[in-house]
């Protein structure tokens, strides 16, 4: 098999399976009544953690491709990003159900909006989600064509902003133990620095080539 075939036939299905694990576990544990004493909180935490983790893995695809030299790895980026988006949808949905129906308020968009607006960590999380929406919509080949590759790429750099907002959302909501949210922050920061560094390296290579 060529490298490309290995990625498509083995790596890609494995990554898909991996991305489905948090969802499958959630489903199994829900059916088995194994979500612990506070199931709504547990669902909220698990879906949020899955969304952020997959966003980070999505960001790691390009550096992994560059460092390994396996160009075909790039095909993983879009599905991973979409998995992250769907976990974020579940995360937001759980929150909305908790704030409305489970709070005895009925489906009151005003009450949810009030909560999103007035609680900074919710505002941040919601903003991160909003930024993911155009990325999910324009994730198809058709949209790449419609926008043009350069513009499409610029748009999709929003994923870094979304990721940063999601990390801040996490940092802001914990009571005292910052270990996990800050670890996510460090990883996201490192990935961002790598990308900026890669751009500069490409820029200087181009300049060198032009001078040569």
């Amino acid at each position, binding site marked *: 098999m060529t490298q490309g075939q290995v990625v498509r036939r083995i790596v890609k299905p494995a990554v898909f399976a991996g991305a489905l694990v948090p969802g499958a576990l959630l*489903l199994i544990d*829900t*059916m088995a*009544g194994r*979500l*612990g*004493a*506070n*199931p*709504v*909180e547990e*669902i909220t935490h698990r879906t949020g953690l899955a969304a952020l983790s997959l966003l980070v893995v999505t960001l790691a695809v390009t550096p992994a491709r560059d460092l390994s030299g396996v160009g075909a790895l790039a095909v993983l980026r879009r599905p991973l990003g979409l998995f992250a988006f769907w976990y974020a949808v*579940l995360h937001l*949905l*759980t929150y909305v*159900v*908790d704030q*409305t*129906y*489970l*709070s*005895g308020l*009925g*489906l009151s968009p005003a009450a949810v909006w009030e*909560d999103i607006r007035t*609680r*900074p*960590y919710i505002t941040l999380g919601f903003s991160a989600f909003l930024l993911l929406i155009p990325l999910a919509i324009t994730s198809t080949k058709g949209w790449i064509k419609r926008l043009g590759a350069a513009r499409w790429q610029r748009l999709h750099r929003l994923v870094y902003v979304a990721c940063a907002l999601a990390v801040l959302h996490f940092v*802001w*909501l914990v*009571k*005292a*133990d910052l*270990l996990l949210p800050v670890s996510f922050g460090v990883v996201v920061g490192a990935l961002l620095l790598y990308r900026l560094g890669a751009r500069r390296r490409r820029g200087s290579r181009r300049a060198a080539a032009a001078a040569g």
Partner: protein
Amino acid sequence: MLIRHPDDMPASAITDERVYESRRRFLGRTGLALAATAAGSLLPRAALGRGPQDEPTPLEDVIGYNNFYEFGTGKDDPAKHAHTLKTRPWTVTVDGEVHRPRTFDIDELWRGFPPEERVYRLRCVEAWSMVIPWLGFPVRDLLNAVEPTSQAKFVEFTTLLDPDQMPGQRRNVLPWPYVEGLRLDEAMHPLALLALGLYGKALPNQNGAPVRLVVPWKYGFKSVKSIVRIRLVREQPATTWNAVAPREYGFYANVNPEVDHPRWSQARERRIGELRRRETLPFNGYADQVASLYRGMDLRRLY
């Protein structure tokens, strides 16, 4: 006279309490899958309706869902890690502004202050709550035994400091040891309890063995666990969460649905075992007994 005992139901036919509880939990929780995925409003309201107002929370949840950062910050960490705590021998020193300072052995407390059962609501600052049958005695019985001086205005309670027994103390998540405090009149209130047990037995380690405070009208973080020292003092003690984040955790920390935590609402709470949130009550439903302690105080400022 012959007294007939109805014997139409043998003891063997009575459902075991654990089976009964687990069945109810299963029924309660399978509803959740639907609630989370389908739009919640499609479910009949009755399916998630409240049970009796204040049924004790199942033991499994009381001993499995805990905030006790000395054993880790996850809710299930204390149940997993608290076995390293040695609760014998254990002493509690009561000193400071008292006429008869004393160090009590934990077994002396059991003998000298026979515990009674008190079923209290516990409201966590994180907006969840439980109902717990404690075994304990009023704090004031202990304070009266050491005779506070006229200078005593506050009571400071301190948790054990020992990173070997309490592995969570190896990380600086909070400044250790954990310290909490009450105004003397709050501590002397008959509802304020020193608990030695729950559900009829000695406290499990993860619930603050061998002796902890229980102040049911305040947020749970006031109810300090695994106490080694009780000091009567003149000034308001520096308490742990208040010192870490004064805007978020007040010294008084009375349960108050009108004063939100800066990051989340305190208007409602989730009773463990229920899906629907309930309205939070002022002073956690103990206003009739304790509101007079705070007459004339601005509880929005002194939260």
